[in-house]
């Protein structure tokens, strides 16, 4: 794919220098490996295959991080008999990025059966990544049998309640949420009253120009409720974030990329590093989807996120493993 010409701002409805249509158009290419970077209010796109030839400074955002998700360490069925191998391939991909990420977010389902050796294995593999710091949120596979006690012991330092927390990095406010506990029969993901109260309080004093990144395992928008792909009380959470000019929601759980832009909020789900799942309604159930072995790496991947200070929207790019 050749480098696109400069995309001038065509529609600046929000007065924030972002051409949403251009942004969406660029992000539509994201699945095929295009980096979209906001520089000086203008959206520039770079083909991943040409990245080596482009001046890194032209592309460098101020903050760059990577999201990985659904490593399911311990899974060993036909859809992928070697999830450790594909996680290692994801680490190699991360280490090969032109802009080294400052840290990683893992949006959950670290393990497959909440076994200690599965968590240990992931820790060990991720230690090989250039970005040493990893921020986690649990998936439903990480809190089996003990209501998340082991997860909290391993990853919950400094967190509240079932493991939610926030931190700031280069002017961006990050919020890690837990929506995989106390699930009710017939229901979806749930944040719960205590966590919602914490959210309201956490963002109360932030300036509306602060870019917000929220990450949680189950999608915070209604992707496909029939398969449990949604969160019951996410509307309340998003209401607390309404004042912000830029909100990016990063989720996992569905093992495929999906995207939605609603006002100032961009929702994005990541591929898994373990196995793909069918598109909504395209199979009887949302279980592991087998693909020909040579195609497996093309449906697994990582997500790279860049933020240029002063610009609102974050550039979110999905990169398949192969």
């Amino acid at each position, binding site marked *: 794919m050749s480098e696109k010409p400069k995309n001038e701002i065509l529609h600046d409805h929000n007065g924030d220098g972002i051409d949403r249509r251009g942004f969406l158009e660029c992000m539509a290419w994201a699945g095929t490996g295009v980096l979209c970077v906001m520089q000086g209010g203008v959206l520039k796109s770079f083909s991943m295959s040409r990245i080596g030839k482009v001046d890194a400074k032209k592309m460098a955002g101020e903050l760059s991080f990577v999201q990985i998700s659904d490593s399911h360490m311990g899974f060993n069925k036909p859809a992928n008999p070697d999830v450790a191998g594909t996680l290692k391939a994801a680490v190699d991909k991360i280490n090969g990025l032109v802009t080294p990420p400052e840290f990683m977010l893992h949006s959950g389902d670290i393990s497959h059966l909440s076994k200690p050796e599965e968590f240990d294995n992931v820790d060990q593999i991720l230690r090989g990544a250039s970005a040493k710091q990893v921020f986690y949120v649990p998936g439903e596979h990480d809190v089996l*049998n003990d209501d998340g006690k082991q997860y909290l012991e391993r990853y919950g330092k400094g967190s509240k309640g079932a493991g939610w927390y926030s931190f700031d990095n280069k002017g961006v406010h990050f919020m890690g949420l837990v929506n995989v506990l106390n699930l009710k029969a017939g229901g979806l993901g749930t944040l719960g009253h205590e966590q919602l109260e914490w959210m309201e309080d956490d963002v109360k004093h932030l300036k509306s120009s602060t870019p917000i990144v929220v990450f949680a395992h189950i999608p915070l928008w209604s992707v496909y409720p029939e398969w449990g792909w949604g969160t019951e009380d996410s509307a309340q959470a998003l209401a607390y974030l309404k004042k912000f000019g830029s909100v990016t929601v990063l989720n996992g759980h569905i093992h495929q990329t999906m995207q939605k832009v609603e006002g100032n909020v961009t929702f994005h789900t990541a591929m898994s590093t373990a196995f793909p799942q069918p598109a909504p309604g395209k199979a009887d159930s949302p*279980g592991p989807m087998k693909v020909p072995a040579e195609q497996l790496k093309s449906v697994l991947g990582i997500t790279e996120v860049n933020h240029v200070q002063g610009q609102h929207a974050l550039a979110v790019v999905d990169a398949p493993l192969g």
Partner: protein
Amino acid sequence: MMKGRSVWIAGLAAAMIAMVLLSAGSPNGAANAQQAAPATVEVKIDNFSFGPATATVAVGTTVTWTNRDDIPHTVVSTDDPKAFKSKVLDTDEKFSYTFAKPGTYPYFCSVHPKMTGTVVVK
């Protein structure tokens, strides 16, 4: 000899009559209390669903859930307090529970809460 054989036939007839009376008298015609071993009913977990979704069983029946799916599931009562709660079941793992009291027992998979089922105990 005719006499012995008559006694034998009469004895057999009496036994058969007694059995018929006993069967007619028991509340569940299929399970003769004198002969039945504890019944087991199988529920298969596959494709993110419980099959059968509703299992109707007799008091004292043991229900065994077997996970035939390629993803782990659990079997958790939705009553409060929970009547039963399995550990996580990987593929081919089982969980059993014996229903000693009549009633309706709704349950779900706590990992995939859209999966629900019921055991009706009569």
